[in-house]
């Protein structure tokens, strides 16, 4: 374990030196804090109206970011929306990477026709526009948090499948894998207990970047009115401000800034992580 500990310290040191990654981490910390503080700062349901409709931002201290057409507090929406965006983003990314690891590991470990068949499936998923697929899934499953998660995961898993497959193809040739086989270990144990830890670093970085994409896809679904109707979300807030662009454009502008900052923060951190975990890729990006 000391070797692994050493490597983690190295990664952390590289991250600390990376100003972009640290800025990203700071943004993530702020958004997580907003999500956690939401029920304390805004104990009322953010979907209830609490004041005069269409107060502009910075007009009154009671509603610092203003209110929308129905007198719902925008600040409360932004804080509570952070919960939904982060939760859906994280769970969808986790599910996407989970599917990707399973499919990629199986394809890369067994090779041959299994690999061929799984890669055809990956290709099919990449041939269909992922957002159209997400729409179709939400249409069939009905709009809810869980169908958003499934739709977003199924439209983003292919990248991690390809990455994991490539890692397994190269790691599968190493001596330690041959040694495991010679010891008579079962395939499952070799794949997940011995190869996976070695394949994981780039996957973790990709999972972070997948989460950023997942938040974008989820907000686009919610913007079109296909999110969970009972939960406030940034995308849905932007969508509800669409009809007011001529008179009160800030209703759409405010939650958009929240999405942009969150995605920016996660992407910056994910890229720093990618560089720190794999020094060879440092100069690219």
């Amino acid at each position, binding site marked *: 374990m000391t070797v692994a500990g050493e490597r983690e310290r190295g990664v952390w040191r590289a991250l600390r030196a990376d100003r972009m990654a640290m800025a990203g981490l700071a943004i993530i910390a702020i958004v997580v804090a907003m999500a956690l503080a939401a029920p304390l700062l805004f104990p009322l349901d953010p979907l209830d109206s609490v004041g005069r409709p269409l107060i502009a931002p910075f007009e009154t201290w009671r509603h610092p970011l203003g209110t929308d057409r129905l007198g719902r507090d925008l600040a409360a929406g932004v804080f509570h929306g952070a919960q939904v965006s982060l939760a859906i983003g994280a769970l969808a990314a986790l599910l996407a990477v989970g599917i990707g690891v399973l499919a990629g590991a199986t394809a890369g470990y067994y090779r041959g026709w299994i690999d061929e068949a799984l890669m*055809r*499936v990956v*290709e*099919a998923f*990449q*041939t*269909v*526009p*992922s*957002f*159209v*697929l*997400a*729409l*179709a*899934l*939400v*249409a*069939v*499953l009905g709009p809810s948090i869980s169908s958003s998660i499934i739709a977003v995961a199924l439209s983003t898993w292919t990248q991690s499948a390809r990455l994991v497959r490539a890692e397994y193809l190269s790691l599968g040739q190493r001596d330690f894998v041959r040694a495991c086989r010679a010891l008579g270990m079962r395939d499952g144990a070799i794949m997940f207990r011995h190869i996976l830890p070695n394949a994981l670093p780039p996957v973790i970085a990709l999972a972070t970047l997948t989460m*950023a994409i997942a938040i*974008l896809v989820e*907000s*686009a679904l919610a*913007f*079109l*009115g*296909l999110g969970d109707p009972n939960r406030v979300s940034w*995308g849905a807030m*932007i969508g509800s*401000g*669409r009809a007011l*662009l*001529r008179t009160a*454009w800030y209703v*759409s*502008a405010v939650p*958009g800034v929240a*999405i*942009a900052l969150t*995605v*920016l923060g996660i*992407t*910056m951190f994910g890229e720093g992580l990618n560089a720190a975990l794999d020094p060879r890729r440092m*100069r*690219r*990006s």
Partner: protein
Amino acid sequence: MNRVATLLRRRLAQAVPTLLIVLTGNFLLIRLAPGDVVDTLMISQGGGDPATAAALRAEYGLDQPWPVQLALFLWKSLRFDLGFSYFYSERVATLVFDRLPITLVLMGTAMGVALAIGGTLGALAAQRAGGRRDVAILAFGLVCYALPSFWIGLMLIVLFAVKLQWLPVGGVATMGSGLAGIAHGLDVARHLVLPVATLALFFVGVYMRVMRAAMIEVFTQDFVRTARAKGLSERQVAFRHVARHAMLPLATMLGLHAATALGGSVVVESMFSVPGVGRLAFDAVMQRDVNTLLGIVYVSALVVIAVNFLVDVAYAWIDPRIGEG
């Protein structure tokens, strides 16, 4: 021409299984959806007796075991019999193909603009990687990538259509203007500025980064040193020699990005009321019109395969080594 024929054959051999998987996925989604065609039909006609329903199910083959149904579905899809949309009272194939051209124009223009701007920015950034200009361009690319495109679209509407009133809010042509010829073309172009900009922004970020990375890699190759030794200026080296080689990875990604752009056109078209396939997809979701939606999935897969094939042909044309043997 022989090389192109070889390529076409190879692409087809890959495309057929891919398409079959896509169609099987569609079939599964239809089975997952609550109710079947006959239910929809009965509801749209205000109900009916069970005997008629059973007769209709037999007619559509819905009383057959599922492998037979799947085979029937695949066979129909391959003949572009994509079923009927009861919401639009129109064949799905007609609906989709009527709306495809405007979407392809929107997509093609957006990708072209993104390639030009993103490629140039990436090349400028790579010239002095790590310099101040590089950092500024990188930051811009990151912002392009992170901004939700639907939000940028709305903000562009606020700025250019509502505040400045330079550009129209939506649609593809001024209603009842009676414009024709060049005037009509200019009118359409004016309407497409904002949708194209919205769709292109994300890809500007992507292409900029890919171009920059590829250029940095090419800069380390021997022929660049030769070019410099010949006494060419840095600008000539960068744009005549390095950029040309760095363009290839951009082209490879076009097929993949065609899929992303088709997805993005759903949001952009519904925002700017462009009557294309994306808008159709959005309306179909709203109406729970699964037939139309799955028809769109199928046709978009065909478009992506076609783009991939065109990229291959372009490659073979640029690089004579490809496609031989």
